[in-house]
């Protein structure tokens, strides 16, 4: 078992960023950046708004502290993080790190409660689309001073990872990586079927699948109905020009014509016999590892796990089934929890860790991730990694809207619709229409909860 399916429930709740949301956030980013210029020069009190402790960029030099560091790297990404922590420990005599990896769903459940009870971490990593929710709920505190001290601005990062880290004009996160879904294929199957290049669009994928079937691989593309089915759906939705949520997250629009096209295509793969029906949780991934299926779309964080499994896999951007290339993405971000903000030494030590980690972005490629820092993507650590094959896809990533509370709508609606349609218990149109109706009510509810 790998850790990813568990990541699904809440991580699934992780909204990407729409194009409209992106522009809106871009504007927000600019504002926040200007606001950030006002303070944070190592002065404590005055910098309250920009970040506790007024971090100056110098490494922490106070008395010895131990930092509780929380993250959700329980899968193939765990060893890479532990290696980084060890290296940091060796380089910093006065800061000891207690690394605590909790599966993401538990992480998002425990973090607010632990922080509230004063038992929370001193520093941590969370997903980009969770930043706004946790900022709104007072779980995390602003980091403008750190971003400024490190000279980090929107220009330093991959497109659209900077904006969603801003909530009400303040920066709450330092982006670490970008992760997306990719197409994994079995190289030996491809060779036997005489496929020389990984497919890039609907026609070439269909052709490849037919060749695979002729070569004796009866069901070359198992279609999941649980994780990561909704990530496939979202990617296809964007490819067909749709948006899951419109109006900056105030309305649900995934049931549009684009949504119907996206989900119909997924169901068709079963109808055409490329996939068995009723693929259970994780079965498509297990089947791929066992060589029972030839192609699967899954997160790039599975790279280490696939390498360990010994399956001869190749990795390529997901084909463009719709009108334009697009893929779901999310990003891991460092944050400072409100509990750590009470102690200036802890806060500054935590910021030292974040700054140091950010500098190691390239080495984080070992976890199967794509570094968020542009400079790190030009270093050998990334350019020699398997995921370098996805470099073209980086320009076409879409993040769910970072609207507080929106993360809880997706599992209750989009995931349900995808599940029902792929299982065939409802037609594509009905599944999407019903889910969109539910989503409309939920979105209203959530807006009320976070504005009230």
């Amino acid at each position, binding site marked *: *078992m790998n850790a990813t399916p568990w990541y699904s*429930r*809440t991580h699934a*709740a992780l909204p990407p960023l729409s194009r409209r949301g992106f522009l809106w956030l871009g504007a927000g980013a600019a504002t926040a950046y200007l606001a950030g210029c006002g303070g944070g020069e190592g002065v404590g009190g005055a910098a309250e708004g920009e970040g506790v402790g007024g971090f100056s960029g110098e490494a922490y030099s106070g008395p010895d502290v131990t930092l509780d560091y929380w993250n959700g790297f329980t899968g193939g990404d765990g060893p890479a993080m532990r290696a980084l922590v060890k290296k940091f420990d060796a380089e910093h005599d006065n800061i000891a790190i207690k690394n605590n990896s909790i599966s993401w*769903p538990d992480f*998002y*459940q425990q973090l*607010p*409660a632990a*922080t*509230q009870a004063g038992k929370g971490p001193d520093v941590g990593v969370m997903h980009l689309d969770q930043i706004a929710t946790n900022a*709104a*709920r*007072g*779980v995390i505190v602003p980091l403008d001073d750190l971003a400024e001290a490190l000279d980090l601005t929107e220009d330093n990062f991959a497109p659209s990872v900077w904006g969603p880290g801003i909530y009400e004009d303040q920066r709450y996160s330092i982006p670490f990586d970008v992760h997306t879904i990719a197409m994994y294929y079995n190289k030996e199957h491809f060779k036997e079927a005489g496929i020389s290049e990984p497919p890039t669009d609907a026609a070439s994928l269909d052709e490849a699948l037919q060749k695979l079937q002729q070569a004796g691989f009866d069901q070359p593309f*198992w279609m999941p*109905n*649980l994780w990561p089915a909704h990530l496939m759906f979202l990617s296809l939705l964007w490819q067909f020009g749709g948006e899951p949520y419109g109006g900056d997250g105030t309305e649900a629009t995934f049931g549009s014509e684009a949504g119907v096209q996206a989900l119909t295509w997924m169901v068709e793969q079963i109808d055409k016999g490329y996939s*068995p*029906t*009723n*693929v*259970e*949780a994780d*079965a498509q991934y*297990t*089947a791929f590892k*066992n060589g*029972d299926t030839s192609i699967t779309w899954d997160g790039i964080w599975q790279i280490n796990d696939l390498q360990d499994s010994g399956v001869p896999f190749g990795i390529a951007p997901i084909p463009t089934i719709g009108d334009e290339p697009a893929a779901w993405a999310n990003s891991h971000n460092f944050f400072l929890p409100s509990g750590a903000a009470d102690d200036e030494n802890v806060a500054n030590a935590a910021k030292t860790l974040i700054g140091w980690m950010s500098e190691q972005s390239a080495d984080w490629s070992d976890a199967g991730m794509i570094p968020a820092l542009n400079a790190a993507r030009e270093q050998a650590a990334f350019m020699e990694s398997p995921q370098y094959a996805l470099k073209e896809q980086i320009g076409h990533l879409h993040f769910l809207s970072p609207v507080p*509370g929106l993360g*809880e709508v997706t*599992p*209750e609606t989009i995931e*349900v619709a995808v*599940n*029902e349609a792929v*299982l065939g*218990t*409802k037609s594509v149109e009905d599944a999407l229409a019903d889910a969109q109706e*539910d989503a409309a*009510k*939920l979105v*209203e*509810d959530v807006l009320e*909860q*976070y504005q*009230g």
Partner: protein
Amino acid sequence: MASPTRRSDLAAWLFLAPYLALFVTFVLIPIVYGLWISLHSWDFMLPDKPFIGLDNYISLMSPDSVNFSPFWQSMQASAIFTVASVPLLLVVPLAVALVMNANFRGRNVVRAIYFAPYVLGVAVVGVVWRFVLDTNVGALNWLLGALGLPDSIAWLSSLPAAWVALVGVTVWWTLGFNAVIFLAGLQDIPKELYEAAKVDGASKWQAFRNVTLPGLRQVTAFVTMITIIASANMFGQSYVMTSGAPGQETRTAIMYIAQDGLQNFRMGQAAAASWILTLALMLLSLAIFAVFRDRSGGETA
């Protein structure tokens, strides 16, 4: 005169005190606090927790609210599971207990085998059965295919197969516990009664009907009650094995409450839902209690 009573009162209270303290701290206070939470729009991290009276309850009860259908669908799922699993969890363990109670070589081995699954955690049980029941690569469908039976049943993602799987796994997992309680009850029935029945020329079936079953009445009432409560509170099996699929049809009430309260942070709403579930279970328990009471009263008379 009054002092001995008072002293024995005191002694009784002293004996009760440790449990009472735990009961008050971990059961009574949370229950009452839960009631208080259910009257608010409650998110423990947000500074504002407005008092909204019975709005949470009203929203769960009004068909046009966003919470109505997911909540009642989950209640329905719990009800289906309870109705399907409780009779099996009474009859099968009783039969197993009768076998365990008989005198034969290897009796202790049989007892251990039947009780063994119960010591496993729900996560272990769920994950193992998920592999066994997988539609396309699972052992069960492979076995069915080898026997020439239909081999493409979606045990975890279609209805009613998913209910068969969930109930079946639960019976396999927990029958040992009920069987042990039945066994204890069987061993409490005086041997003389069976001898008397034999003397009267009763058949095995008649002895079972007229000696064993009446002798187990109290035990059966207890087992019925705890089994209903356990089944109505089913969570782990659905969570691990089906994730509530297909759609949200196998998402049980507890699973809905946990997601609503702990993942979506609508604790007021979740507390109200818990209270509705609790009241339903209390009423059901009273009904069961009455059923077993009446009959015992009737027969002793």
